[in-house]
């Protein structure tokens, strides 16, 4: 009897332990699954919301917007662009958004309670796209003063009455460089608007995530550096392709905010791809050699209206450089950003701009754009 009782008690305990373990395992499994699912959901939500915000910010040209990141202030947002494919999302999560269309210029990583989005239109010579610059309230830019018109342009463009919209920046002289501090900034970038020997820049600054960009060749080339151990390490460089006469030189400003030359060129390639299609809308060369697009329609109208000035102007003045631009931009996209075709784009675009202006002022024809 006593033995039987003993067996019964032991059996009950084993039974309870096994059943308890199974139940515990079951609920632990559910919790782990739910945790993974909710993290995944968070990443998806954040990225989707960012996508909407970026789309909205991008189309409102020449505007700045801010986004409070709230609970995500301690998370790292990553941005990258390789082989024409941009990607952004929350670091450490599987879900990120890939984008082959919109040019986004930003640091590689942002960890901040406030994102600043700045949309700038890019013209070559007509409007191609809006660049979206993404930075944060704790990414600081130190501009080393040079008294150039570009410095003035930057000063005007970056400041805002609303502090939340103002890019975290400061114009300093070269001698003040040794006094800069990390402060509450997640990362710091030094911007040299004029050519400088990189070895002249102090490396002893006690700042984490310190990078520098140096403009050279009269502002048409930018070189990216990062601070290594006791010296500045070259990352890469990129040429800047833009028209000179713009109030806000989007290509040049975007270069300051891009993480490196690779990200800059990757985004610019997206822009040139769009330009290639846009040129076809303005005036594509049909298979039979006849001009198509808007230019074709304008030319046809003026032919029917017997307006010889416009006919010749359209044909000689605009068509030839427009075709050249198309040819160059296609080569630029096909070859690489560093090819000669890319470097010639701004000159050809300037020719089109001159001819377009002439159409209106000299011969009273409808402008192409």
């Amino acid at each position, binding site marked *: 009897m006593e033995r039987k009782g003993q067996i019964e008690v032991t059996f009950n305990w084993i039974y309870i332990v096994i059943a308890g373990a199974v139940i515990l395992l079951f609920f632990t499994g559910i919790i782990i699954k739910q945790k993974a699912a909710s993290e995944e959901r968070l990443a998806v939500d954040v990225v989707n919301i960012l996508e909407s915000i970026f789309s909205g910010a991008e189309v409102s040209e020449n505007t700045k917007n801010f986004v409070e990141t709230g609970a995500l202030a301690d998370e790292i947002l990553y941005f990258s662009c390789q082989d024409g494919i941009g990607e952004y999302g929350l670091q450490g999560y599987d879900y990120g958004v890939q984008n082959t269309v919109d040019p986004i210029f930003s640091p590689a990583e942002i960890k901040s309670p406030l994102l600043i989005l700045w949309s700038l*239109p890019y013209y070559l010579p007509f409007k191609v796209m809006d660049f979206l610059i993404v930075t944060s309230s704790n990414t600081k830019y130190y501009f080393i003063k040079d008294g150039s018109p570009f410095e003035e342009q930057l000063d005007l463009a970056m400041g805002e009455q609303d502090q939340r919209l103002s890019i975290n920046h400061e114009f300093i002289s070269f001698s003040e460089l040794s006094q800069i501090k990390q402060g509450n900034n997640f990362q710091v970038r030094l911007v040299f608007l004029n050519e400088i020997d990189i070895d002249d820049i102090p490396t002893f600054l006690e700042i984490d995530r310190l990078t520098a960009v140096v403009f050279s060749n009269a502002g048409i080339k930018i070189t990216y550096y990062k601070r290594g151990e006791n010296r500045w390490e070259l990352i890469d460089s990129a040429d800047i392709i833009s028209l000179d006469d713009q109030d806000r030189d989007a290509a040049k400003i975007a270069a300051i905010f891009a993480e490196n030359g690779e990200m800059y060129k990757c985004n610019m390639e997206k822009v040139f791809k769009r330009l290639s299609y846009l040129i076809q809308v303005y005036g594509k060369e049909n298979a039979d050699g006849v001009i198509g697009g*808007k230019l074709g329609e*304008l030319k046809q109208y003026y032919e029917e209206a017997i307006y010889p000035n416009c006919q010749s102007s359209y044909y000689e003045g605009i068509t030839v450089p427009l075709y050249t631009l198309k040819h160059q931009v296609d080569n630029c996209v096909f070859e690489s950003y560093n090819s000669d075709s890319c470097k010639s784009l701004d000159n050809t675009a300037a020719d089109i701009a001159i001819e377009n202006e002439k159409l209106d002022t000299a011969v009273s024809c409808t402008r192409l754009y």
Partner: protein
Amino acid sequence: MKKAQMKMMETIAIIFIFFVLVLFGIIFFYQYSKVSINERNEQFFAERAMRTTLKVLFMPELICTDHGRIEQNCFDLQKIGAAKEVIERNTEDYYFNLFSYAEITVHQLTKDGMMIPPAELDANKHLIYSNPKLVFTKKEPTYFILTLKDDITGHYDFGYLNVTVYS
């Protein structure tokens, strides 16, 4: 023997009720998740529709320019004609990434300041992008009033943009 059997039955019944309750909980949670996921998807879908419309409204391929500067909520009629060909030819390699599964149409309502008769409305409809999903779960049309500019004559007309997105 009878007592032990009773006890066993009782334990089984308790376990059975427990798992039934757990099952109810799981079913309830599953249903709740399903509803909330559907709601989220609805929200994302509506956002995508809005985003697509916004992208179309500011497309450099369509928008009017005046001395190089853009005119808001205005499409250039000469560009529309050219853009639909370019977009159609490059849908797969470029414009699908921009609009995904959608249909974009510009409807012209007036011509030279006069209302277009209903019978001629179809002839003044411009299909800019057409890539509908053949088997879709949802579709969301959005409409937006536009001015349509004839850049040659400088006349402005009225029309509307219809962007339908598919999921």
